[in-house]
């Protein structure tokens, strides 16, 4: 039996889009010089991707590297790999000023799926989706809490929040996706 459980244990709701808590995901806050050769190598080794450019997320199967700020990345790996990945990053960046912290358990992950996924998020986030590029991660707020989201597949967004407010965020997504509240009904 696994002792580790996600904040909402995978609860989901179906409205005009489907919203679900996506379970545990390995996440590492990685701060350092994003332009350094060591950093490029370390990220490549951890996720198989390049260091993402400003506001980009580089996806590679169940791994990804996302740009969080000019000196911070979010490394995504399977939950079980997080501890080892932190150790590997520490080793790869040894001798260079950096910080790698496991934040897998500090987060909650959600998926918003459906042709109108954007409409549910438009009710919560002050974001101009028209200017959101393909492969962009957007850090913003969902109503009253911080979040980040990106387009994880055709008609699907993945949204990350802090773990303590997972119930609040799910409440927001649930009510925003209720049938009949489509923003641009056909």
């Amino acid at each position, binding site marked *: 039996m696994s002792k580790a*459980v996600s904040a909402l244990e995978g609860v989901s709701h179906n409205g005009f889009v489907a919203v679900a808590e996506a379970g545990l995901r390995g996440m590492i806050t990685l701060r350092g010089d994003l332009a350094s050769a060591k950093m490029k190598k370390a990220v490549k080794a951890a996720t198989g991707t390049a260091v993402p450019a400003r506001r980009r997320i580089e996806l590679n199967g169940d791994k990804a590297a996302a740009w969080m700020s000019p*000196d911070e990345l979010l490394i995504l790996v399977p939950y079980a790999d997080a501890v080892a990945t932190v150790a590997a990053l520490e080793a790869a960046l040894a001798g260079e000023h950096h*910080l790698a*912290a496991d934040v897998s*358990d*500090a987060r909650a992950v959600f998926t918003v799926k459906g042709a109108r996924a954007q409409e549910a998020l438009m009710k919560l*986030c002050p974001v101009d989706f028209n200017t959101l590029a393909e492969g962009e991660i957007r850090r913003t707020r969902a109503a009253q809490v911080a979040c980040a989201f990106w387009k994880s597949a055709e008609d699907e967004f993945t949204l990350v929040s802090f773990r303590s*407010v997972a*119930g609040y965020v799910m409440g927001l997504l649930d009510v925003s996706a209720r049938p*009949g509240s489509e923003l641009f009904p056909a």
Partner: protein
Amino acid sequence: MSTRLQKGGRLIDRTKPLSFSFNGKRMRGFAGDTLASALLGQDQMMVGRSFKYHRPRGVIASGAEEPNGLVGLGQGGRFEPNQRLTTTELFEGAETASQNHWPSLEFDVGAINDRFARFLPGGFYYKTFMFPRFAWKHVFEPVIRQSAGLGRVPQNRDEDRYEYAYAFADLVIVGGGIAGLAAALAAGRQGKRVWLIEQSAHWGGRAVVDAVQIEGTEASDWVKDAVEAIEGMENVTLRTRTMASGLYDHGYLLMYERIADHTPGDGRPRHRLWRMRAGHVITATGAIERPLSFAGNDIPGVMLASAVRDYVVNWAVSPGDRTVIVTNNDDAYRTALALLDAGLVVPAIIDARPEAKGPLPEAARARGLRVVEGHGIAKVKGSKRVTGVSLCVQAGEGAELETISCDAVAMSGGWSPVVHLWSHCGGKLIWDEAQAMFRPDAKRPATGADGAAMVTAIGSANGILNAHEVLADAHSAAGGKGAAPGAVCGEDAPMMPVWIMPQGAGPALRMKMWLDPQNDVKVSDVQLAAREGYESVEHTKRYTTLGMATDQGKISNINGLAVLSDALNRGIPETGTTTFRPPYTPISMGAIAGEARGEIFQPLRKTPMHGWHETHGAHWEPVGQWRRAYCYLRHGEGVHDAVNREIRNTRNAVGLLDASTLGKIIVKGPDAGRFLDMLYTNMMSTLPVGKCRYGLMCSENGFLSDDGVVVRLTEDSWLCHTTTGGAERIHGWMEDWLQCEWWDWKVYTANVTEEYAQVAIAGPNARKLLEKLGGMDVSREAFPAMEWREGTLGGFRARIYRISFSGELSYEVAVPASEGRAFWDALLAAGEEFGVMPYGTEAMHIMRAEKGFIMIGDETDGTVIPQDLNLGWAISKKKPDYLGKRAQERSFMASPDRWKLVGLETLDGGVIPDGAYAVAEGVNANGQRNTQGRVTSTYFSPTLGKGIAMGLVRHGPDRMGEVLDFPVDDGKVVKARIVDPVFYDKEGEKQNV
């Protein structure tokens, strides 16, 4: 009587009859009706009573400007007062009730106020309720409360839901009349991201009622084609039932969409508040007709001429069989002709102008209508309904020359552009003498982030009343290519400003001339205000309540300020307008709240163990957005008993505290030690790896801001614990200094507060419990106090800190948050034999107070420095600088007279009330008793069996044993002795076992 005509009505569908009720009476209307048109169609002219005099009130207008037609709509969880009849679409089963009367609309006791009207002039409230002073609280206020307010407050929880939506556009065009449509066509063709919104359910505005010809076809056909063409443009979004409520800085436009007002209970949100960011806003919001001020102009049946035309053309409703027109302009003649076309009688058109010879008056004459030039209405006859009017010479004093019987009066005093959105964000107005209107001054618009104009007004909102010119204005403002759509409409002759009718009316007539029919403000009230010295229009507004009603003076403001200007003998532009403030029309409280209600009213932060607390009697305490267990109530147990039980158990066996909410911030880098030495008052760079140290943080102003245990993780990384409420604030504080002041220092921080579930295991059996879980050596020898260890405890990845906030042997264990609940369960299972029992925040508070430990927020309040709390030992004398050090060197910070921390013990063993002050001899400059100290924490200590307290007292530590007086309620005085703040286990033996 008002009635439904046999044919016509462009907006109603006669094949879809709807039933509704008014004051319990069954009524019928048609799909497409508003509540106003449906009521008028059933001869319900009187719909309410005015606020102050309770005079009968009928519908005046046909749109958002309506001041009178307000009803309570719906029942139970869908009841809402003050719904405007003219803008509420009729739906099957609508239940409406008139307001502001008792016992009934027809017979109202409050109407007695009308008889005393001469004693209730402008400013009545301010003059009457001044003296005697005691009367305000005991007589006036209760009486006013009883009669104040319009409509009934909903008693039930709102059954509907509401939401926000964020949107962005290059251009938002507000108003779906021909100006808005022409602008949308032009802008849409350029590929811009455009929104076109219309507050009503229909496109076309006034032009479709006024039978304008556009591009060789009827306006209604042109509108239909235009809407179709715009719908075909992917870059343009069209919304009806969406009102632009307010325009704010940088193109922030609030738009209020009434999604389901006309289909209540269909499962959709009732209202949606669009939080739009517009690159540019075009206001095509039209113009509002002004009433004329003549005696009796408030009697039901007196309506705006344009509204009369709307009711006939749009809804096939005749407000009366015989309608007298009174006007100062040509436009009202269109109403006369529309009435004739509908087969109704117009006994006379009374035109205040000396001459009316334009094409429209000539057309009226040609159809046999009587036009009386240079005249006005002396008086309207009737009380609950118009029965006739008497004529007078406009230039005279009101001698009645002739009486004409009629049951409706259609009045027109000219037009006022709707300049609200233009003005909300600073757009300026100019006075147009010829049209007697304030209109947007294109040279002084509201400006946006780039310093350029943010708003353009077009069409009649821009003061252009001729349809052909309206289209040209709209087309060019939207950057249209080629020729604008052309329109054919009659040329109107100039209007003549008429502010009171007749011009020389005496006091008796002026007392019956209403400016604001909802709030009962008359011409005489404004003139009185001017005589009493009110010169500013803003002051006059508040003194008389002119324009302060729910309609915010849409039809009354200009007339009112013209009367004020006249009374002050100065020009209208010198008087100026009152400020136009959002919302344009009232919006629902639900829409303002959006999704934030019930469970998601605000974020509720939960620890990984929250579910356990919930199912085990947690009595909650909000701490920031967290909810922590204050104590755990067992069956039949009171809060006080539960707290005492938890303390006794922790002191005698072992207790568990969910401490997950404590802030945890990693600080790492070659300059991390140097940075922490600046942040904390004590030295953190010297803390050895593997050890913990209690630290204090101050603001630059020297005041104690946060505290917590700092842990040296590795050579270049530290973990800083903060208070529960301080995590985000302190992390932000760190980043602020690193990014903005010491940006060359190599330090990274990461807020890992939520990564860990943290449990304090405290009490004599704490070690036994951890030993039973096994995996780590927690013995006294291997793991001394103020150190930390990492390892696997009972199968959990754990970091253990040997720190104590209770004075007991204590370990704080951090595990990954995802495993927090499993760890908590494991502790409870393993601890059963040792008497384990969770304790809440109150037990934690009391135990720390028994030990004399301070609490941020109790002993500190933003004015307390560490020195006040005898924490000098935690302030490094060696460091040249730390945040707050310079501030603490100021003379009053270093003063020996500052109040300092002591313990307090009541002489009778009772508990001193929190916040009580110790009095000193003498009084201060305000005649108040001098004080010499105050209580900061106070509890009943179950361990000691008596009340204990901490407080700040002048020269406190030097006055041990002295007894102070703390006056409390009811003249009683609590006596307490100054003692050492450490009440329990002074030597600290218990935590060092």
